[in-house]
């Protein structure tokens, strides 16, 4: 299924606004003083949730093509990935600023004493090179190293899910759902890679 250029432009614009809605929602709630009794926690949880959500969406583009043969989303994959990074940054800014007021000693303590903070911090750091190298120019300049570097995204996804899992007190429903979806996406890829490897050499790819 090919898509015309002008149509693609519309799709991109729609998704650009769509992926901005979680932030718009938070801003509207904030203005109306409706973020609940613990507004900092609400913002922290919400931005973190959407960062992980969009990360998994960006990872589902290829499985989507492999299973149901829908391939146009590849054109918005970079945008989704960058949105994930954007929400991760908002998440981190909330943590450093609103939650801890740049009290670095307290923050360092938190990072090294609490495993969930450490893995969250790591996945944020690892997202930075991916975001920087996300341009066409970088892609060309890096050649095959680009793909190798961007394989880090799987590791980041694992760290982020662990971050969520270790954060919750007792009810692990939500992080478990994320973990299941991630496992499903990975198995689709592995399954198809096997088929491809087992197929005769001259078969179309």
């Amino acid at each position, binding site marked *: 299924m090919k898509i015309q250029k002008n149509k693609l432009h519309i799709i991109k614009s729609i998704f650009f606004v769509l992926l901005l809605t979680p932030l718009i929602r938070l801003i509207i709630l904030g203005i109306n003083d409706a973020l609940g*009794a*613990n507004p900092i926690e609400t913002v922290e949880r919400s931005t973190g949730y959407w960062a992980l959500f969009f990360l998994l969406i960006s990872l589902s583009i290829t499985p989507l093509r492999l299973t149901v043969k829908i391939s146009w989303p590849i054109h918005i994959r970079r945008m989704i990935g960058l949105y994930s990074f954007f929400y991760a940054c908002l998440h981190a800014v909330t943590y450093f600023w609103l939650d801890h007021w740049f009290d670095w000693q*307290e923050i360092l*303590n938190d990072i090294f*004493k*609490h495993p969930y903070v450490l893995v969250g911090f790591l996945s944020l750091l690892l997202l930075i090179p991916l975001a920087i190298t996300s341009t066409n120019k970088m892609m060309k300049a890096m050649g095959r190293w680009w793909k190798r570097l961007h394989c880090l995204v799987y590791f980041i996804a694992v760290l982020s899910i662990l971050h969520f899992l*270790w*954060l919750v007190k007792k009810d692990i429903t939500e992080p478990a759902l994320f973990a299941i979806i991630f496992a499903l996406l990975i198995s689709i890829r592995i399954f198809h890679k096997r088929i491809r490897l087992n197929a005769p050499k001259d078969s179309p790819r």
Partner: protein
Amino acid sequence: MKINNSEIIPASEITPYETYMGRRDFIRAASAALMTAPFLSFNSEVSAATSASLFGYTKSSYGADEKLTSYNEVTNYNNYYEFGTSKSDPALESKDLETHPWTVSIEGAVKKNKQINLDDLLKLAPLEERIYRMRCVEGWSMVIPWIGIPMSKLIQWAEPTSNAKFIEFVSLADQSQMPGVRTNILDWPYTEGLRMDEAMHPLTILAVGLYGKLLPNQNGAPLRLVVPWKYGFKNAKSIVKIRFVESMPKTSWVKAGPKEYGFYANVNPMVDHPRWTQSTERRIGGGLFTPRIKTKLFNGYAEQVAHMYTGMDLVKNF
């Protein structure tokens, strides 16, 4: 055991004479009303409305120096897993909880097992208001004007034997009324416990109200424990059974995570939790731009309670 009141009330907080007299008048009027009316009208109409007012309690000066957390926040941001694991679940899911009639069983190391209904329990001592800080193990805190009776009064009435070293508090676990109890998120019924001296301590109360009103269901109606120097989960809600026992009870959160939650659970900024920092806390009600505040040892009640733990390793006995 005496409480050192002079340490609790700063001079600036001493009630002006006029207000004091006004308060006396109110209490006199209220007492007069009580002569003719039942002490607390717990008829079904009253208990159906969570906003029903309580009368005839004495205002206390405990913690009067701190800004109260709003009623709205106290009643809409709750941990009460019997009604769900989200903070907003209890207010939504507890509306239909039947809290009248309510009977509490007194069992174990007592002269005689007995039961007491709520109305009789409230006659054991005059109702008092206690403004306490409440520090949750998750790193947030509130200041709540509770209304209740000292726990010690119930203990005296229960007549424990010399074998009673600890008290176990058991909460209601009714699947038909509590959706959370249908899941196995915790080992139901919710169980908490105190050492005998902790339970006898004058700061420990059984609360039946807050903000001058009957305890809303989401806050543990009709009867809950309040132990202000311990993390919030120690405050068992909707208590149906009080057992006097010889050895330390296995409490719900200790069973759920023995490395994370201890029996004592005294607020202590020096003893970190595997997940949450305990050196600071966020006071609910501050909005987006209010920094955290420092957490105090024993939640600021060290003056009154520290002596009970002398010689004890607070890191080991967290």
